[in-house]
């Protein structure tokens, strides 16, 4: 540990904290990453692994463009992690499909994507609405219930566990200090700048502090005058035995991993801080997957898990620096895989610069302060 303190202390060693810390360490900052225990509610152990753009940003076109920028930057992130950490997160971007099981679903996709294209204007937004024949060209495994779908060239996927391990291996290789069992109990702003963090492993001093602690960010933000209204949203994933390559494109909710397993997911439930797996949720997830791709019915399920997304009231990320205590940042989102490249290669620079760019001001939590219309 650095006796004279760190340039930046990142609270949270999941995909958000890990990515920001990685970017900081790459830029030569002296970084400490503080983690809790294995039993923590960590969203980063439960990711589905999509790097997804299609349909994101309805009502917030900046989020559509931010997600798309990350899917571009992911190529660089993947290469950098392979070089720094010796572990490829296996990012590929073959384009993603949302399958429609009815004409209603198909026309809803059409109007959603047309609306996004209008909203981003000159930035451009490519997609294709697929008819029954075209969707089968992309995904011959589609069953008879699939009437069409939507395709986006910006969508891809990666191995989220290799991403996590790659970030940590890279951090270690770049000389960042990773401290497990270092839950932060208090953040004390120091006169003249900097922060003392009281942890279970003693006091750690940093010139700046980044709160990227998932569900823990709410309480930590309050210590430095940052409002972080996050709540847990339960998502469940079903994994099958491995098979030979069968799905050439990831779809929203069903994808085949680089290692051959099929993942079904995309449940959204409010269950508080409960990560347990419900059979009926697995059933519903698997039922839809088999309607889309009937061949999946022949596969054995080998694992299921539940994890808690870190959700904001509007579903968009929170990026903010404390006005009361400059140098204290909070970064949180529920798309830790998709946005990992942005966090590593872009958001880390905001911390070094001491400023979040004007164009990202829409992600500050003061957007939640607007009084409800009477």
């Amino acid at each position: 540990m650095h006796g004279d303190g760190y340039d930046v202390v990142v609270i949270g060693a999941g995909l958000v904290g890990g990515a920001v810390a990685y970017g900081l360490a790459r830029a030569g900052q002296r970084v400490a990453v503080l983690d809790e225990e294995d039993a923590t509610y960590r969203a980063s152990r439960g990711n589905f692994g999509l790097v997804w753009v299609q349909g994101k940003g309805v009502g917030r076109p900046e989020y559509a463009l931010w997600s798309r920028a990350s899917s571009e930057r992911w190529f660089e992130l993947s290469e950098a992690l392979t070089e720094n950490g010796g572990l490829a997160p296996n990012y590929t971007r073959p384009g993603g499909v949302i399958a429609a099981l009815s004409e209603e679903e198909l026309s809803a996709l059409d109007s959603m994507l047309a609306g996004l294209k209008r909203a981003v204007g000159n930035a451009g937004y490519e997609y294709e609405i697929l008819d029954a024949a075209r969707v089968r060209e992309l995904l011959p495994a589609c069953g008879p219930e699939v009437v069409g779908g939507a395709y986006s060239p910006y969508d891809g996927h990666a191995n989220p566990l290799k991403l996590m391990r790659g970030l940590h291996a890279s951090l270690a290789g770049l000389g960042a200090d990773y401290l497990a069992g270092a839950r932060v109990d208090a953040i004390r702003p120091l006169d003249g700048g900097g922060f003392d963090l009281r942890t279970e492993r003693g006091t750690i001093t940093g010139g700046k502090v980044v709160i990227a602690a998932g569900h823990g960010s709410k309480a930590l933000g309050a210590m430095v005058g940052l409002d972080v209204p996050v709540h847990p949203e339960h998502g469940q994933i079903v994994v099958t035995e491995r098979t030979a390559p069968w799905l050439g494109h990831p779809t929203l909710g069903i994808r085949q991993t680089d290692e051959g397993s099929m993942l079904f997911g995309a449940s959204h439930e409010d269950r508080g801080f409960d990560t347990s797996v419900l059979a009926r949720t697995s059933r519903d997830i698997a039922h839809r997957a088999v309607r889309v791709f009937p061949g999946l019915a022949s596969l054995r399920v080998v694992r299921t898990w539940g994890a808690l997304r870190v959700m904001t009231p509007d579903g968009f990320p929170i990026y903010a620096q404390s006005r009361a205590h400059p140098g204290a940042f909070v970064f949180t989102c529920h798309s830790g895989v998709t946005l990992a490249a942005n966090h590593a290669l872009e958001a880390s620079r905001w911390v070094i610069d001491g400023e979040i760019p004007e164009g990202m001001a829409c992600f500050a939590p003061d957007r939640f302060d607007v009084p409800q219309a009477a």
Partner: protein
Amino acid sequence: MFRRLPDPTGTIAFDFEGTTFEACEGDSVAAALLANGVLGFRTTPASGAPRGPWCLIGNCHECLVEIDGEPNRQACMVEARAGMQVRRQHGARVIPR
């Protein structure tokens, strides 16, 4: 490599890749193959390297074999039966169209 403990149960015969093997009643397919000197149960989808049982309690999926035409069965979780047709699992299974 493996030697049986004294076992009072009767024996059954099953087929492994065209050869008739004997197993004790109650053996898992994995135990029966190991007792017959088979170590490589499958080859991996990634590199084609041979693999055999590791955990023997249903967790590791290293002991996959084809049983009576059904691919990717966990040999340690299936009881050997008379007349069973067992083959190695070569690489990844294929989903029938």
